[in-house]
């Protein structure tokens, strides 16, 4: 039934495509990280053939540059911090939402879920733009906050072009990614467990912490991965809302490839980001199989 050629016929086309357009570019990037940048950008040739003599133009200096000063690793750390903060806030906001939807009557659930997904289906840039409007120095929010802070004698603040703006928007854009896996997990919880606990006299709080919370952890991890990894590589949000200080590793990668045209160094940074992502994905896979997880 599962003849050899059926196997090949099915898996070969997508495999070839992805080898060509996913695996190969990644390998080329690895190779590019050891080359010199071209005079006017891009990559310099990696070998010279003069009079039959082959000289290789490869170098470690791009990788060395990563560790020369602490700023790049510092930026990576900062980006990880931003992504962690975003994930934490998303978890905090998504949990009550997912819980409410999971507990509501079946007929309402689809609608409530749809309402969560709907904003996500609007264009990514529109969602950023919305926050540019809300945070604008001439806007009502800033005016309101500053009027309030003036009552306390505090200096007027600017919401736009700050780390706060970046985190808020990051949370906004990634919230549905946290809600959905969490909901998928919570929906499967066996109500009988909670009923039994109630019969045994456990309070609401205890029922939550001892039953619901541990069972929901795999869903939480799944959501965390879905929020953390994309947040790490993002550049549009810090670009538009971050100002001079709110930039993340994605911005520097973009800058290397677009403005500075130092592709070898850009490759180095990208590879580091890839490595971090891979480690996290593997870790998440392991953590997702915690003992006592819901079916």
């Amino acid at each position, binding site marked *: 039934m599962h003849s050899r050629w059926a196997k090949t016929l099915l898996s070969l086309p997508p495999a070839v495509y992805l080898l060509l357009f996913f*695996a190969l570019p990644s390998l080329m990037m690895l190779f590019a990280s050891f080359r010199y940048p071209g005079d006017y950008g891009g990559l310099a040739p990696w070998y010279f053939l003069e009079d039959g003599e082959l000289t290789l133009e490869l170098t470690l200096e791009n990788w060395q540059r990563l560790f020369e000063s602490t700023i790049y690793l510092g930026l990576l750390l900062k980006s990880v911090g931003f992504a962690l903060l975003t994930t934490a806030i998303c978890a905090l906001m998504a949990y009550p939402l997912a819980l409410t939807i999971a507990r509501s009557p079946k007929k309402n659930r689809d609608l409530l879920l749809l309402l969560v997904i709907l904003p996500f289906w609007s264009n990514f*840039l529109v969602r950023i733009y919305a926050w540019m409007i809300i945070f604008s120095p001439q806007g009502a929010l800033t005016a309101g906050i500053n009027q309030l802070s003036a009552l306390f004698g505090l200096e007027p603040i600017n919401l736009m072009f700050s780390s706060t703006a970046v985190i808020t928007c990051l949370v906004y854009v990634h919230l549905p990614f946290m809600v959905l896996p969490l909901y998928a997990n919570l929906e499967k919880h066996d109500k009988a467990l909670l009923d039994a606990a109630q019969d045994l006299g456990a309070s609401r709080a205890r029922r939550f912490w001892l039953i619901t919370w541990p069972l929901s952890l795999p869903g939480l991890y799944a959501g965390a991965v879905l929020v953390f990894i994309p947040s790490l590589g993002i550049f549009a949000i810090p670009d538009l809302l971050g100002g001079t200080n709110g930039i993340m590793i994605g911005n520097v990668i973009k800058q290397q490839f677009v403005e500075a045209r130092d592709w070898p160094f850009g490759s180095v940074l990208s590879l580091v980001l890839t490595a971090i992502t891979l480690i996290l994905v593997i870790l998440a896979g392991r953590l997702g199989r915690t003992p006592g997880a819901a079916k």
Partner: protein
Amino acid sequence: MKNNKLLLTATVLVYLFLYIPLLVVMLFSFNDSRLNAEWVGFTFKWYGQLFGNAEMLRAALNSLIIASVSALLSGTLGTLAGVAMHRFRQKWLSALVLGPVAMPDILIGVSLLLMFMLFNVTLGATSIILAHVSFSIGFVALAVQSRMAGMDDSLLEAARDLGATPWQSFRLVTLPLLLPGIVAGMMMAFTLSIDDFVVTFFTAGVGSTTLPLEIYSMVKIAVTPEVNAVSTLLMLLTLVLITALSRFSPQTLRS
């Protein structure tokens, strides 16, 4: 009781958080002022300007073409991958297919730019399509795979017992049953392609601007409420698409 009220309030607040920014965008698309700061008056002029904006219309057309081709291509390749992944459980295929889904967009965009440049490929609509397909295959495959997992194998057994060849049983039993999953995956690929910004940013060429790139350039440079108008229209379009999808096959929304 008190716990419930707290939960309910939290839920409502989060929903508000999700919707207020979008409502602000929509509201100001009708505002008679170049600023998105205070309400001045009601007008449709930004929508009017939008339809006269040749660049925007061209970008919209590009987006539609690219998304359609990408959906078709990734639909085909993704279905094959999804079936293979479900049937044969090859770890390497899963890694290859789902890799682009797991990676941050910027890495895909940047590595493809590198490769295209090194192979002297002129960037354009083709390069964008090739890039979009690479990450869309995974989504189609996931949709197809989950559909297959929920499929009743006994139907296939029955077909085999009745003398159908593997190809016949695939064509006449499996494929029709899979179709909702395939279509859902393709619609997902279509939406991902239309909405994509980062990967397109790095792989677009001359004259192949897509709608998100055009919006980005408007947001960075021009920022008139035309942006609000196009955003509102896009949201309405997606609402229509989603409603159609939910009528069409409600359970595919869940996957």
